[in-house]
């Protein structure tokens, strides 16, 4: 159980820095790691049910990145210095100076870091964060909230005095007006599909067949020219665009047999508003030339890699030989901590104050000013319905996204918005353009439900309006248009998972809230209007290149320890992975350690190329190296926790069962070599800690574990899994068998020996062409809401609601229901409360806090009138499906549809405020 060797995951970044997360084995775990291991040694077993991190969270244990100071880190100097990031609240004038004279003598920074210092030190922004990390003097900041300087303070008191002063008065001076800095757009793509003439016939054109296309031409100001131009360049674009223009012409023809709706929508920018502002702690130890950090991000592997890029080409004194990263639990994420630039500034603070541990922490004003935001959208959607059948004949849409100051995730959000534009529906002719612009706003990136949330607002309110125009029931219209299993999605591929939207519609239709909607409306008291609305949504989970690392060990007492690379931000990954592993090993884990990219050194993984753009030939060649995988570790985002985050640990546990506990059980039962019951391992099951196979005495889990150790059988496994809309599969030599599983790397240990990597004998990575798929993993949710509108104030109150969702096999029911309840609250906030203006009045001005930015409180929600139903899986062994994003999405259009039912007015810009409603009435 206690590996004698150091486990170190090492990889080499640009410039030859060794990136590693060195740690001691379990028995000698460093202080920080033990704080992140749940339920932890202090808690002697878990009392009853509950999250695996529950005791730590109700007792105030040090857990989050913001809880750690130098004194809490083993082997670090005792005292903590503090850093303050000065950001620009102006992006239309030349930055002329940094005047720190307003700071008193007891509030002076000991070091001031500016763009010039970064240049001198040879530091550079990692490719993903391209742009000036600090705005150089003499230039106009590229975006509101762009960092200008890092102030480093030896003492907390000096730092605290300075931040109080600078909160009131910016130290930055500005000169000539330049207007905003223009930059190219981040992505411009067109997704067009024309189905074959007959049902089941091959498509005439689809992104899957022809690839994704982008216009080659842009007007002044970066606006793409979507029309096919008669030029030799962009020939591939021309073909798709020609189909697209035909679809638009069809819609514009106003065929009397069709009902056409042409509508514009606007959705706002919001803040993820995770409750723990971003923060980090770092120490550059010049003697060891090691940079050590404690961070809280959704993408630990990426963060470590980016730090390597930042420092890899630096001058010697700014270039560590090693970077050691520790990743803590997060106080919320919602996407906003996935690929955040924040860790870069933590590292810079440490490099410019060598020898001193230093902490950089946002307050809430700074988090609004500098944290990743949701993209604001402007959409135009046109739909043509067949008047007789209600079937959608053609759909066209144009999406314009405000990407803010830096590229970040804008391209991905643009793609998802397009590929999700037709939601759960089967549409034979679709043409969607999508462009994400650079603006001077705060950088927009990943946030819960991105792309789909915005387009569902358009689509699901259009469906309601169309039902009215067609004289059809809104449920019947949706049902008539549902994409069925095997049907093709917008990119031209079918979904490869269960499609439950028909059942979801049935549940909504049967629900009392829906059936009683007319009566409820009629019974509205004076001064109140009651309305009911519904919507369904489907949301991809996974990104098309998702990884999972999992390590499972069982000790001679049957105790189970798990490490995985997925991170914990409230999503319950530790609990879910423990529950999934328990299905194989008969016991909920005694220790689970998350965000551990360091515990997998034995796999010796290597990678190359970009998993999203790699060619088939390159993949085939690379795959010959048994250590190669398309990507090593991915962010905990895109609702991949249940499906991907638990996959490697689950597969490792399955290996431990089959080649460790099962042989031990056979030995205990005395089943002989030739007895056919040897092969019944999948018939056996665990119940109350006992392994049961009919006709044989139940075996206690710990006796089985002890026997496995005594026999030198397999007692631990670590695995890597990769999904590109299908799992990579490989076979490994185990006990004379070729063990095939949905993993692409495996190491095992026997008894108390070390982990040994196994060479895969066969591997099948999902083809590179799957990168043309928009999504094939999707889960669905339907929401029904009843609103009460106060006619005097215009206030909209969600009075009752029902959400029904499906997520395959449920790993932790309470976590799933909790996500649905939380997603509902965030949906209400998005529909009715939350709003960030784009530019100078917006969060980039550094003056936003929760008084102006209103998120839903319990009093804004129907906490006693919200019903959540989780559909049972289609089969007991249906794999878990991601669900934490989709649960937020239909809430928003359902509210808009309910407001329409109550008031007769359609609102197409979010949020719908009491003033909007009052004006409309």
């Amino acid at each position, binding site marked *: 159980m206690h590996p004698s060797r150091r486990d170190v995951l090492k990889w080499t970044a640009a410039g030859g820095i060794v990136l590693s997360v060195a740690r001691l084995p379990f028995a000698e775990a460093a202080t920080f790691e033990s704080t992140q291991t749940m339920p932890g040694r202090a808690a002697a077993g878990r009392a009853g049910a509950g999250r695996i991190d529950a005791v730590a969270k109700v007792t105030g244990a040090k857990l989050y990145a913001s809880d750690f100071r130098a004194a809490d880190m083993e082997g670090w100097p005792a005292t903590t210095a503090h850093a303050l990031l000065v950001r620009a609240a102006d992006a239309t004038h030349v930055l002329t100076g940094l005047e720190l004279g307003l700071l008193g003598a007891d509030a002076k920074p000991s070091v001031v870091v500016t763009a010039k210092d970064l240049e001198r030190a040879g530091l550079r922004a990692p490719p993903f964060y391209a742009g000036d990390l600090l705005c150089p003097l003499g230039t106009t900041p590229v975006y509101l909230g762009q960092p200008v300087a890092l102030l480093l303070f030896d003492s907390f008191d000096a730092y605290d005095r300075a931040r109080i002063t600078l909160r009131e008065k910016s130290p930055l001076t500005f000169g000539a007006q330049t207007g905003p800095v223009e930059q190219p757009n981040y992505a411009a793509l067109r997704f067009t599909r024309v189905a074959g003439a007959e049902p089941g016939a091959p498509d005439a054109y689809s992104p899957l067949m022809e690839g994704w296309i982008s216009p080659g031409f842009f007007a002044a100001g970066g606006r793409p020219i979507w029309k096919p131009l008669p030029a030799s360049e962009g020939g591939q674009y021309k073909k798709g665009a020609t189909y697209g223009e035909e679809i638009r012409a069809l819609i514009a023809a106003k065929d009397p047999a069709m009902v056409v709706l042409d509508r514009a929508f606007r959705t706002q920018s919001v803040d993820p508003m995770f409750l723990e502002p971003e923060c980090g702690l770092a120490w550059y130890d010049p003697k060891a030339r090691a940079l050590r950090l404690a961070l809280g991000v959704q993408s630990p592997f990426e963060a470590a890699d980016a730090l390597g890029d930042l420092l890899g080409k630096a001058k010697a004194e700014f270039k560590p030989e090693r970077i050691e990263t520790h990743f803590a639990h997060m106080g919320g994420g919602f996407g906003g901590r996935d690929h955040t630039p924040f860790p870069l500034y933590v590292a810079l603070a440490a490099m410019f104050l060598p020898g001193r541990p230093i902490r950089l922490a946002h307050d809430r004003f700074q988090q609004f000013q500098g944290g990743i935001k949701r993209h604001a959208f402007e959409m135009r959607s046109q739909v043509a319905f067949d008047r007789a059948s209600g079937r959608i004949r053609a759909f066209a849409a144009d999406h314009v996204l405000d990407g803010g100051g830096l590229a970040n995730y804008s391209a991905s959000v643009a793609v998802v918005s397009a590929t999700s534009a037709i939601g759960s529906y089967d549409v034979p002719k679709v043409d969607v353009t999508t462009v994400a612009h650079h603006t001077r706003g705060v950088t927009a990136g990943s946030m819960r439900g991105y792309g789909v949330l915005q387009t569902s607002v358009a689509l699901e309110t259009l469906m309601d309006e169309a039902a009215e125009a067609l004289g059809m029931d809104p449920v019947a219209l949706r049902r008539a248009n549902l994409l069925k299993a095997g049907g093709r999605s917008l990119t031209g591929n079918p979904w490869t998972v269960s499609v439950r939207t028909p059942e979801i519609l049935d549940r909504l239709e049967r629900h009392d809230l829906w059936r009683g909607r007319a009566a409820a409306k009629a019974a509205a008291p004076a001064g109140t209007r009651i309305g009911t609305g519904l919507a369904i949504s489907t949301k991809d989970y996974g990104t098309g290149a998702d990884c999972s690392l999992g390590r499972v060990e069982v000790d001679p007492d049957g105790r189970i320890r798990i490490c995985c690379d997925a991170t914990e931000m409230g999503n319950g990954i530790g609990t879910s992975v423990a529950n999934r592993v328990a299905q194989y090993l008969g016991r909920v884990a005694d220790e689970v350690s998350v965000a551990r990219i360091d515990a997998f050194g034995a796999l010796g993984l290597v990678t190359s190329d970009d998993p999203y753009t790699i060619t088939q030939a390159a993949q085939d060649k690379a795959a010959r190296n048994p250590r190669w995988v398309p990507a090593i570790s991915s962010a905990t985002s895109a609702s991949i926790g249940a499906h991907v985050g638990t996959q490697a640990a689950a597969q490792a546990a399955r290996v431990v069962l089959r080649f460790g506990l099962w042989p031990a059980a056979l030995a205990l039962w005395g089943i002989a070599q030739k007895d056919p019951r040897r092969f019944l391992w999948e018939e056996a099951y665990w119940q109350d800690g006992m392994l049961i196979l009919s006709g044989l005495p139940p075996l206690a889990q710990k006796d089985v574990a002890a026997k496995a150790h005594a026999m030198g059988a397999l007692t631990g496994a670590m695995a890597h899994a990769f999904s590109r809309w299908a799992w990579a599969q490989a076979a490994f030599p185990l006990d004379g068998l070729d063990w095939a599983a949905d993993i692409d790397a495996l190491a095992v240990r026997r008894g108390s020996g070390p982990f040994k990597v196994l060479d895969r004998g066969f591997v099948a990575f999902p083809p590179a062409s799957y990168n043309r798929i928009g999504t094939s993993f999707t889960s669905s949710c339907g929401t029904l809401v009843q609103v009460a509108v106060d006619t005097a104030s215009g206030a909209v109150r969600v009075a009752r609601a029902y959400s029904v969702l499906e997520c395959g096999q449920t790993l932790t029911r309470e976590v799933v229901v909790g996500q649905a309840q939380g997603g509902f609250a965030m949906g209400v906030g998005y529909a009715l409360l939350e709003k960030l203006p784009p530019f100078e009045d917006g969060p980039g001005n550094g003056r936003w806090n929760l*008084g*102006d930015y209103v998120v839903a*409180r319990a009093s804004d929600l129907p906490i006693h009138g919200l019903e959540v139903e989780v559909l049972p899986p289609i089969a007991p062994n249906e794999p878990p499906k991601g669900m934490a994003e989709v649960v937020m999405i239909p809430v928003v259009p359902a509210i808009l549809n309910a407001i329409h039912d109550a008031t007769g007015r359609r609102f197409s810009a979010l949020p719908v405020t009491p003033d909007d409603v009052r004006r409309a009435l």
Partner: protein
Amino acid sequence: MIPHRRLFTLLAAAAVGLLSAALARGEGSPPAAPLAPPASFSAIADPAELSAAYFAELSKVLTSPRCTNCHPAGDRPRQGDAARPHQPPVFRGPDGKGLTSLRCAMCHREANFDPAGMPGHPHWQLAPAEMAWEGKTPREICIQIKEPARNGGRSVEDLIAHIGDDTLVGWAWAPGGGRTPAPGTQAEAKALVRAWVESGAVCPK
């Protein structure tokens, strides 16, 4: 021993908010709008018009968010220069000092705490519901403020001291935390109230 800060806040309260005013008007507070002195209205010959003019000038104070935010139309105060609903959602409660779980004094301590932009005063509370001014015209406020049933049981003469000397009212001129102070000074407002009362307390049309 009385801790230094406590002593400081007691002094501040005793000195009619002068100390806290000086502190709060440091960096960040926008300048107050001016308030015309009674003498500047001497050109108005008609005594009733003159009296009404004093009130109209005074109403710049009474309709400032510094006043209306805590003289709200409902039971929930407002906040900031934009007069948005108070966050977190607090309500009047039986004594005007909040419900059991969210009392004013939880956050609003004896003096402003400027490092967090938090206003404070020993008697922080909502004006009684019958004294609501939010959304009212100067004339409506004037009629209301003269009625003892809707002005806290005061004679018009009492209003001179209430507006002119009350330290909680005085906070409006030293709000701190980037809030725009009420127009003029408390002394200037007092002079206007006195002039209005002494000229017959006529309400503007």
